[in-house]
């Protein structure tokens, strides 16, 4: 489907903190169009003297939410754009965006499943769009989300994920906390490895559709791990994010 990709001026409708380093920016778009879950918007900042900085941010919301998109953005240390968004931008500000963009790392209900989603840190954002879309569409496609974060407080969307994982639609959410665990924690407390993947992905059968998103090192460990437990490489899609906040 060919359509021009133009910059448009979005308005920040709301800013909501998710975790200490992460905020969700709800944008009103004059030229909104439904996106495919997994896609992103490019966002551009321009100073008075013409200096520009541009980054890509995955859409967190489902395409079923019309007229607006939500971008959930982690504040990167010394991040020029994320720092501006977190520290300077306020609701009412206008921001240039372009999108939605992406055709490789996307999933919609008609693509079927089972679905194996693996997230590292803010890599959960595009996968959240997929899960929100799955819920909005009333899909029962068997799905697993394996979400790796440094600590309990870093689990972006945790309350909503807990709800989705308990709604009986066939989604199970598994967390692994790699740096610190709260007392009484009975979940995983280590980096993703083949044994963990075998346990979590096992019930999905031999050929789930896999989407892995996060920092490069996690993405590669997870992709290699899935290949090691027998998932065909053609069923694995990856999206690398830059190094995380701290």
């Amino acid at each position: 489907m060919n359509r021009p990709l133009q910059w448009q001026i979005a308005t920040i409708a709301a800013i909501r903190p998710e975790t200490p380093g992460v905020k969700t920016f709800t944008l009103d778009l004059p030229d909104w169009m439904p996106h495919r879950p997994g896609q992103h918007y490019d966002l551009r900042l321009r100073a008075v003297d013409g200096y520009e900085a541009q980054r890509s941010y995955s859409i967190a919301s489902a395409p079923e939410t019309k007229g607006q998109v939500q971008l959930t953005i982690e504040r990167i240390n010394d991040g020029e754009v994320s720092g501006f968004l977190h520290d300077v931008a306020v609701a009412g500000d206008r921001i240039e965006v372009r999108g939605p963009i992406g055709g490789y790392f996307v999933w919609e209900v008609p693509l079927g499943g089972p679905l194996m989603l693996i997230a590292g840190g803010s890599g959960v954002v595009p996968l959240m769009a997929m899960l929100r879309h799955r819920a909005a569409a009333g899909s029962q496609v068997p799905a697993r989300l394996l979400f790796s974060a440094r600590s309990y407080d870093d689990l972006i969307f945790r309350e909503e994920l807990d709800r989705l994982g308990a709604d009986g639609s066939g989604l199970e959410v598994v967390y692994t906390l790699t740096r610190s665990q709260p007392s009484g924690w009975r979940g995983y407390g280590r980096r993703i490895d083949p044994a963990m993947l075998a346990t979590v992905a096992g019930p999905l059968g031999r050929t789930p559709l896999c989407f892995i998103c996060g920092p490069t090192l996690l993405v590669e460990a997870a992709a290699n791990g899935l290949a090691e437990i027998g998932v065909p490489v053609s069923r694995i899609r990856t999206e690398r994010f830059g190094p995380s906040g701290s």
Partner: protein
Amino acid sequence: MEAVDDDLNRAMMLDGNAVAGRFFALFGAEMTANLTECASCGQDHMMGALHAFTHAPGVVLRCPSCEAVMFRLVETPRGIYFDARGAAFVRIER
């Protein structure tokens, strides 16, 4: 495909998804789901899966199998240089 923990350049590596917008502006269509073949090792990959080095004077896209340079993208005031000598072909789906 080994990942070395202390390699800063590899840690900052992204993939073809990161330049999807630039590809769209160049080709007028989504490119990340299109297949391309490495001229060096012959492996096929989707454009979205290529290793992307974006912290450079231009964007360098490398084959995930053998790391050979497949594409270079440089935006200049006079135009965009798109060097594809490292790719045997790109299959553009209708």
